[in-house]
């Protein structure tokens, strides 16, 4: 969100400012916080959660079952695409 280039997140901020009690600045911050929270890549996420669940005393079987569930629900940042890959996505 700190990027001043126009992007579709501006639409989301506009929408939140229009439809909730949030000021535009607050909506921007909220989106920024959520995006930052979801900015973790899958592998670091799995390692961190494994450690956390292990500390809670869960066995590996229980941990991996739970991780599979969590991974299916959670949004992750896309990997970095090259221009060539982007072209392929668009033009096949």
């Amino acid at each position, binding site marked *: 969100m*700190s990027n001043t280039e126009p992007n579709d997140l501006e639409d989301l901020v506009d929408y939140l400012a229009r439809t909730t009690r949030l000021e535009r600045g607050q909506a921007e911050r909220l989106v*920024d*916080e959520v995006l*930052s*929270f979801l900015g973790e890549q899958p592998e670091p996420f799995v390692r961190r959660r494994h450690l956390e669940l292990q500390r809670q005393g869960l066995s590996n079987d229980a941990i991996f079952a739970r991780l599979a569930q969590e991974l299916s629900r959670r949004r992750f940042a896309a990997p970095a695409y090259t221009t060539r890959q982007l072209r392929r996505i668009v033009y096949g």
Partner: protein
Amino acid sequence: MCGIVGYIGKRQAAPILLEGLHRLEYRGYDSAGIAVGNKGKLRIAKRKGRVRELDALEPHKFRGGQGIAHTRWATHGEPSDRNAHPHSDASGRYAVVHNGIVENAAALKAQLAARGCVFVSDTDTEVLAHLIALLDDGSPLETVVAEALRGVVGAYGVAVIDAERPDTLVVARNGSPIVLGIGDKEMFFASDPAALVRHTESVVHLDDGEIAAVRADGYQTRTLQGAITTKTPSTIPWKDEAFDKGAFSHFMRKEIGEQPEAVRRTLSGRLDSRFQTTHLGGLSLGARDLLDIRRVKILGCGAAYLSGRIGAHLIEQLARLPADAEPASEFRYRNAVIERDTLYIAVSQSGETFDTLAAVQEIKRKGGRIMGVVNVVGSTIARECGRGVYLHAGPEIAVVSTKTFTCTAVALALLAIHLGRLRDLSVANGARLIAALQALPERIAAILEREPEIAKLAERFEGVEHAFYVGRAAGHAVACEGALKLKEISYLHAEAYPASELKHGPLALIEPGTPTVVVLPRDDLSPSPIPASGRTGWMGYSRCLSWNPSSIRCCSTSRCSCSPITWPCSAAPTSTSRATWRSPSPSNEAADRRDDDSGPASTGPP
């Protein structure tokens, strides 16, 4: 600046008391003394000079399981054998050791003299011994001492022994700390936990206006008016080894060297890299409370005040809250307006600083919101504030503040980030700051490894009588701390000035050879102080020592006798200044890692 230690129990008291005196000697050492009770009599030894001077009187041979001892830094009366504590009444039955000042000592002395008391010392403490002897009607000792103290005006931490009451010692506190140590069928007390850690970890802090009857099997506390109070023992978090200076030549040097580890402990468990913020468990203020705050006022004395100025700068920059710092000693005397939407922060290493404590009590009395930034767990200011941040810097034995100055700045930086993230500090900025704090201990260590170079640089300034320190914003607070350290340690006159103020008069005081230390963090202000430092050089009057993240530089001018030297830094030094908190810019990330701080001045430049 005095020390009290006491013991009652199954062991011989004298060796424990003498060892405690050695531990407290850093509090003051113009004289020392000990009183041990045995078979209805007191044996007292006291002498001018350091604790070891007592050895000639062989106090270690005193038999008896109850005793009190004192190491003194004179307030009333010159340092001498007769003014050394303990002081006793004419019969020699009661003995008293005392920290603090009895303000109405002259009036009490006149009253007692009129009743036939003869004084043999110049101290205010002797008054207490005569007063207790006069008032003793056979009541329990604590009742007699309480009655005596009700007539006393002033600050005290006091301990009393009565030869004819071998099962009880009495201690009381009003403005000067007393800590009880709980042992196995034995009790200890001292004015500083340093004297207790070798024997027990379980302690009880007396509050102002409290008196305690201490017996081998326990203690009972009450107010001076007689109401019984309930105390909860706490644990001293420090080990005995922490009070040993080890291979270091003195405690200050040891504590400078401990900074990386101390800062690591201050940061431990408080950096939240998942949400790019900080976690301060002792704050006890929720987000809604913190968002209600409209202003921050930091109070402290000496180096605590100066580190508070750095903290105020950080809070203002990161949280965009108006923030300032003020000496607690000034604040408490000026009938300050206390605002409910202001967060007051009391900073103290010991947690016992008298003026800071008085300011805390004044703020609480007027309904202000207060928190502490304190090193000693369970200390009076910590308890009075009820919320805050412990530094966990470890014991600071040297009278001058070193590692706690740094750790206080770090703790206030943690608070600034917390307040900032609750407001408008972005995730990206939070992440940068968290990463910078994580890297801080290693950066401090890198600076400390350069001590021989810094010592070599200091040789260039041998023989100077005055020094100037200049800086801007947080750099000025660091400059003030540098000047304070030079005054405290080297007994040299030093002045710290805001960089641009130097030209408004003080510049005329700079003579050939006067060193000027320029605290020059590489931040967005970094070009600004240069003209001031340059000007001192252009005038040919000063040897300028500029101190910035990438170099420590001594420059000469045409009229300066020293040759120019520069030490490029291999690693960026520690950060306590604004430079670390610069706004993020993707393009200068590498430069940030290289440049972003200024810290060595905080460890006391030469």
